[in-house]
């Protein structure tokens, strides 16, 4: 299932700098996107989302940008902190009236160096 793809398996940045995590999708029916963060030995934790009617959503240090024409979204973290080191997944729900199955990307391991 290649409908959601994260091409960078890892990213390393310095503390205080910007982290940019990328995600591409192929299914034009997706109308909502989510980012989850996952620490080792824990489950994915919801971070931020964006509706397809918007091109930007901001929550504190986290901003998600959506480019529908390119079928591309990105998560910006600024300033990056060592505690942000985790695996980041983008995901898209396929909404049905009886639930939304999430399609996940492969994940990107972010390492923020002090």
């Amino acid at each position, binding site marked *: 299932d290649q409908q959601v793809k994260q091409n960078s398996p890892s990213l390393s940045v310095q503390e205080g700098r910007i982290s940019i995590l990328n995600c591409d999708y192929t299914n034009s029916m997706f109308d909502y996107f989510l980012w989850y963060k996952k620490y080792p030995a824990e489950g994915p934790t919801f971070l931020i989302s964006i509706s397809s009617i918007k091109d930007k959503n901001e929550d504190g240090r986290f901003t998600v940008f959506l480019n529908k024409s390119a079928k591309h979204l990105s998560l910006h973290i600024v300033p990056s902190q060592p505690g942000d080191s985790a695996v980041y997944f983008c995901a898209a729900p396929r909404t049905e*009236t009886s639930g939304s199955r999430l399609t996940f990307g492969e994940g990107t391991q972010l390492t923020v160096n002090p």
Partner: protein
Amino acid sequence: EPEVTQTPSHQVTQMGQEVILRCVPISNHLYFYWYRQILGQKVEFLVSFYNNEISEKSEIFDDQFSVERPDGSNFTLKIRSTKLEDSAMYFCASSPGPLSNQPQHFGDGTRLSIL
């Protein structure tokens, strides 16, 4: 903050044996899900459950799998006759509603190891 809890955290089982993974979703949530992640692979959807019945299942969720909500709080995943390829992290999730803007909340997972 309410959370999804899963037990056990690690389950080791002989191939061919039955295993039951347990989850307690967030109390006011109505939609429940199971996902799995085989080592090195993507998180994959298995099944969604609403109003005491399966609402959707993936091609992975074959006759060996079943889900149940035996009481008002637990949500279980049963694998009847485990295979080596069932070894994975299994995540339970819940959401208050079915809509895209009602994010699913995940438990910390059960690591299932089939020997």
